[in-house]
């Protein structure tokens, strides 16, 4: 899923300075699951904004609403009346949701209330791990299901580097060395000799490096 983290209130307040009527819009998908931008957080943010602005002597009308999925236009219709009535919308969705709102309601500014952090999974309650960079050319079959692009700080295809110690990455003792995990897992499956193969330079043009990506599938277009 897409993991996000709410921006500090001060930053959000700054974004909406001067606006009188605010809509805080949550999303019912990933950001609800990662407890950053669902209905509960949208209500909390709306309340916090309202209190802060009141204290600052510039009271404001804040409303909150959550749509099922902010990254698809058809779900955005459910908030048309609130969006049109507001001076500005604070989206608690990921960056995709924020942009979907700006595209769908082009005359209305929607600002981000979250920092979209990464694509990942919850390891346990309150802990999320990045494990996919969307590079456009999956190699998980070659690395025993552990991504060298996302799980190695240097995205090495022929790792591990010389900074791997005790299974940890040089970047932080909190970060597992992805390549250490790959080597261990290859060993468990009796596939260590596969490490001898020198993986050629990656074609990064399939990633964002090739420019903003757009996918067209003729088989499903209407």
């Amino acid at each position, binding site marked *: 899923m897409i993991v996000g983290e709410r921006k500090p209130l001060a930053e959000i307040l700054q974004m909406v300075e001067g606006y009188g009527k605010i809509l805080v819009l949550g999303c019912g998908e990933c950001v609800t699951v990662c407890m950053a931008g669902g209905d509960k957080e949208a209500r909390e943010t709306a309340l916090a904004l309202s209190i802060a602005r009141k204290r600052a002597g510039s009271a404001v009308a804040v409303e909150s609403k959550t749509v099922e999925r902010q990254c698809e236009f058809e779900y955005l219709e459910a908030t048309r009346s609130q969006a049109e009535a507001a001076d500005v919308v604070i989206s608690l969705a990921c960056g995709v949701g924020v942009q979907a709102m700006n595209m769908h309601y082009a005359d209305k500014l929607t600002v981000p209330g979250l920092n979209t952090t990464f694509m990942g999974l919850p390891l346990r309650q309150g802990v999320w791990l990045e494990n996919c960079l969307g590079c456009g050319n999956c190699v998980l079959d070659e690395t025993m299901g552990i991504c060298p692009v996302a799980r190695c*700080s*240097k*995205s*090495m*295809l*022929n*790792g*591990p*580097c*010389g*900074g*791997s*110690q*005790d*299974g940890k990455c*040089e*970047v932080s003792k909190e970060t597992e*060395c992805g390549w*250490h995990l790959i*080597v*261990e897992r290859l060993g468990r499956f009796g596939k*260590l000799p596969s*490490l*001898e193969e*020198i*993986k*050629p*330079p*990656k074609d*990064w043009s399939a990633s964002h490096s090739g420019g903003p990506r757009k996918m067209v599938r003729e088989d499903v277009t209407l």
Partner: protein
Amino acid sequence: MMAKSNLQKVLESGQFVVTGELGPPKSAERKKIEHHAEMLRGFVDAFNLTDNQTAIVRTSSIASGAILTQMGLDPIIQITCRDRNRIAIQSDVLGAVALGIKNILCLQGDHAKFGNEPGAKNVNDLDSMQLIQALKKMRDEQVFTGGEKLEAPIDIFIGAVENPFADPFEYRAHRLAKKVAAGADFIQTQAIFDMERFERWMEKVREMGIHKQVPILAGVIPIKSLGAARYMKNNVSGMIVPDALIERVKAAPDKKEEGVRICVEMIEHLKTVEGLAGVHIMAVAWEEIVPEIVTRAGLLPRPVYKD
């Protein structure tokens, strides 16, 4: 074909090689590079020039290397994968060769997080293995990574590094073999403090016969102070500094002398380790001690070749 580099010549002679390391300044002061290089002249066979070591912005390794070639010295320029993509790297290799540089050491590079630009984008378009292979292809096949032909051949001497102190330990000798297969002509190791572990690694290296394929230079760092030893133990990635060594420095009345003594003892020992072609002395920020270490370790005189 370019003439052989001094490093190549000494390696081919079979004499125990000594290389030194120069960290370019955080300024454009040519005289600082010249000063340190002059200090080591006659004591080392070639000079390693770091490429923004520990991700700190400094004069480029290639520019520094060019200054050394003008001084009649033999530079080994380092190239990391951290700051440049394959376009910039290959372009820099051509530029380095045009400036008379022959030895190129390929490294992955410390993460930018450690340096003075922690917000920088870590490029890592190629990894260190692919970098070695790219250089080999440029030299042996005259093609760039993208497949296009070079307009004229280049001659380079390709170095790679390996860290016996990194994990998983069992894979480290295999990884060295992979670097040799990728095209490394010589190897330089991470600085050794844990001799026992280094010997275990060398045993594996010999078992695999890698030492017969490429010359291996063992890295050493003279310990300047107790603080420096502790810093390397706790803050430098991929290093193992045993507690016993720290205790030894701690107990010594003259820390610097003890540091030199430890380094000299290590070199004396490394000279006896089968499969080593030389030592690489990394006395960055303590360059002035290198002549004393080389002298006391019995590594003089250094060979001189007439072109």
